[in-house]
């Protein structure tokens, strides 16, 4: 019982230290810069938010075109001609899944970014910086989705070229 309590205290202590270390992961110089440039930083974030909304609409509509007007249409036609290929079907499924993930990660990122913009960086510069780090991670996930979609579209070209050679 005593041992269990000691282990619990150690874990609690570690969690506390880790939390404190995270909050303190900002230098005084950085803290002052955030407080001094608070409005400027927020304006930049709002501009990024607007530009990102534009990028999502642009990319989202083109991803939809690639998926529904090309990849899916080709697979339907292949089935009709009894030439259905499992690798092309897999590619279509992966494209659909990645497109869906792109929308989900974008919404997660925008939620986090909105919370960051709503924070008062003059009052809570440390928490603001912590949130900024988290927003960076979410943005990176969206960027990864963009790369993955491109990769899959290029793969589709390769698969169709192979199909053409074996027709």
């Amino acid at each position, binding site marked *: 019982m005593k041992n269990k309590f000691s282990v619990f205290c150690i874990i609690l202590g570690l969690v506390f230290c880790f939390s404190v270390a995270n909050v303190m992961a900002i230098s005084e110089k950085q803290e002052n810069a955030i407080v001094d440039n608070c409005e400027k930083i927020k304006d*930049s974030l709002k501009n990024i938010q607007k530009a*990102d909304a534009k990028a999502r609409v642009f990319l989202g509509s*083109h991803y939809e075109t690639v998926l529904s007007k090309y990849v899916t249409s080709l697979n339907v036609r292949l089935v009709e001609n009894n030439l259905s290929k499992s690798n092309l079907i897999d590619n279509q499924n992966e494209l659909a899944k990645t497109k869906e993930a792109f929308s989900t990660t974008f919404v997660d990122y925008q939620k986090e970014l909105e919370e960051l913009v709503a924070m008062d960086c003059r009052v809570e510069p440390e928490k603001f910086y912590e949130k900024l780090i988290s927003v960076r991670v979410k943005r990176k996930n969206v960027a990864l989705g963009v790369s993955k979609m*491109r990769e899959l579209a290029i793969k589709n070209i390769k698969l169709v070229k192979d199909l053409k050679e074996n027709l």
Partner: protein
Amino acid sequence: MTTGGRNLVLLGVGSILIAFIMTGVSLAVYHNSGDIYLDRSRPGFLPDEEELKEEEVKEEEYEFSKTGTLSEEVLDEYLKHLKEEIEIIDSYEEPFNTGLLSDESLGIPAEDKE
């Protein structure tokens, strides 16, 4: 006030209350579902004039037919149009560039732990 008049007032107040509750619920769903972040018709996110002009100029989009036979020529046409579509996607300069949120871009000095 007559009973009919009182009932009329109650009906009016009740309707207004229901309208408020329904609007609140709709806004909560709109926000929590994340649709708000995909909606460009909200203030501050409306497309600018240039974008609207681009939309108007946009040619009719190609769509690969779901029916018909398949030949090398048909697949060549598919590949040609798909490559063009990917080029359009690539023309969007650095979407979600991670550098934009860097300390440097936001005017925060580099980490300098004391």
